[in-house]
């Protein structure tokens, strides 16, 4: 049994929860929705256990002590999967919109699945340049923001589907199962309004770290630039929403452009490499 075994288990539970979510969307059988929540909650618990196991292995190197193992691609993906699932549970507990599971849980399963199938945890001493308490703050803030934004992506997808249903004048069963346009629109707005400040804070903390480590606040490095672009796009979405009353499909497209920036920031850095490459992140 490898160190990722519990995370593997979490992945399988997430995948099962995803199927249950689609089952609920398909049948509107409340049992499927309950099964989804139970599977997801179990997945989160197992995932936490997996993270704990990884942490203990990572900290067996004394120089790694107290730093989070999120510098590897595995650590980052796994953390995002976990944060996504927790963010979904938080949204679900306040809004009780079980159908949204079908739009968000695939992302949970995808992130966690990617972590366990094509990356491996780095169990080696941490790069000296990364040994800083900022490591526990800067990426954690950003990944939390990404996870919440991913929930927003799911909500946006549901909104687009519902808008198409209503514009078509021939609504199918799906129309009655999805939450109303207004509800989805409000939820998307709230999600972005919550995640954007977290994202901005994460970027600001990154600048402080950069200043400490390299004496420069900004260096036009790809990941940094993309991160700023992400904040700009989501900022534009919020501004248009609040000041101009921009809602509906067009606003959703803008929020999705923001999420595309998130994905590019997250995975693009691997392509462009540089200071933010997942150092030592074994494939």
């Amino acid at each position, binding site marked *: 049994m490898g160190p990722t075994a519990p995370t593997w288990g979490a992945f399988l539970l997430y995948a099962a929860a995803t199927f249950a979510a689609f089952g609920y969307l398909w*049948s*509107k*059988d*409340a049992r499927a929705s309950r099964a989804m929540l139970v599977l997801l909650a179990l997945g989160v618990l197992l995932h936490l256990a997996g993270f704990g196991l990884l942490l203990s292995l990572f900290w067996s190197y004394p120089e790694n002590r107290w730093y989070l193992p999120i510098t590897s691609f595995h650590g980052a993906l796994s953390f995002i999967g976990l944060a996504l699932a927790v963010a979904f549970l938080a949204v679900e507990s306040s809004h009780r919109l079980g159908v949204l599971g079908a739009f968000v849980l695939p992302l949970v399963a995808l992130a966690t699945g990617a972590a366990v199938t094509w990356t491996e945890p780095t169990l080696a001493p941490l790069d000296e340049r990364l040994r800083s308490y900022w490591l526990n703050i800067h990426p954690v803030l950003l990944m939390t923001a990404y996870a919440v934004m991913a929930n927003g992506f799911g909500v946006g997808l549901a909104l687009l589907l*519902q808008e198409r*249903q*209503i*514009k078509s*004048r*021939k*609504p199918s*069963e799906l*129309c*009655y199962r*999805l*939450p*109303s*346009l*207004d*509800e989805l629109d409000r939820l998307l707005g709230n999600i972005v309004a919550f995640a954007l400040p977290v994202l901005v804070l994460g970027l600001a903390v990154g600048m402080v770290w950069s200043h400490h480590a390299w004496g420069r606040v900004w260096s036009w490095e790809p990941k940094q630039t993309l991160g700023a672009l992400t904040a700009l796009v989501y900022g534009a979405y919020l501004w248009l*929403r609040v000041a*101009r*009353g*921009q*809602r*509906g*499909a*067009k*606003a959703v497209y803008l929020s999705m452009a923001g999420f595309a920036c998130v994905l590019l920031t997250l995975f693009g850095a691997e392509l462009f490499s540089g200071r933010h490459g997942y150092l030592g992140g074994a494939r």
Partner: protein
Amino acid sequence: MRLLAFSWSHRSGDAAAREALASVPVERVLAELKSRGVSEAAAVSTCNRFELYAAGTPAAPPDAEAVLAALTELSGFPVSAGAARREGAEAVSHLFSVAAGLDSIVVGETEILGQVKSGYEAAKAAGLTGKRLNVLFQRALYVGKKVRSETAVAAGSYSVPSVAVQMAESIFGDLRGRSALVLGAGAMAELAAKHLVGRGVARLSVANRTWERAYQLAARFSGEAVRWEDFPAQLETADVVIASTGAPTAVVTREMVERASRARGGRSLFFIDIAMPRDVEESVHQLDNAYLYRLEDLEAIVAKNMEGRAGAMAAARAIVAEKAAEFEAWAESLSTGRERSLKHSEAGR
């Protein structure tokens, strides 16, 4: 367990007996039954239905004659002739059907569930429910909810106004606190307005070329009458617009809606055009956050729902039959002394 049920409903046809029974407060019915030695009984009384359930044991079965005599005396009407009498399993599945809204005039309506609940609570308060009736009514409420959440019986709307309301709810969610604008004051407009107000629409404005008629319709819904020239300004605040004027050309133009939408801050605007010829320009539907449904769109949805109705009814009846059988098995197990668990069968399937 011995269960006995008497029903007077729209199905039995005898409206006089129903009306006589409906005029008697349920508390008085229960008190009278108690004084005549009935140990377990509950009544469900609505404007088009009166149901009485009495339970006992094989040793002491409920006395049908005493029940009917009590009801006849209280209502001052010979009610026994128009009563549908059911016993045992038949009575159980009847109550479950009633709770599920399958026996209602508007199939799937949700009000009946609350009425069954208050009937049960009255019986409980009167001390007329023992273990059997308690479990029976709790199961009925559970089945009522289950049928509504798992089948499309309640979701399906089978008339133009109710489909219009359903679409409004797909756009706005809860309609409470929303505002509606009615253009024209015909019978169709009134019917649609009635449905919207019934779902909690808070502000209703009526605009009509003849001020008098606008005023009359507005008064019926404690709404506000608007001068015909002023209705375009109302487009800035309304959420739902019902158009049914007799105008020969469209009265709501794309420019009008575009102008209003600048002040709307992106809020959705739902047009229901039931006028012939059309009242709202077709191109309004292409505007962002504006949705236009015409009479034929709503009729097409009604037709589609009707097709699916048979399947939904079959699914609902299957749930009722399954849960009634479960309850019967439980009631049976009481007399053998080894009580079966109802919870178990609920989770296991």
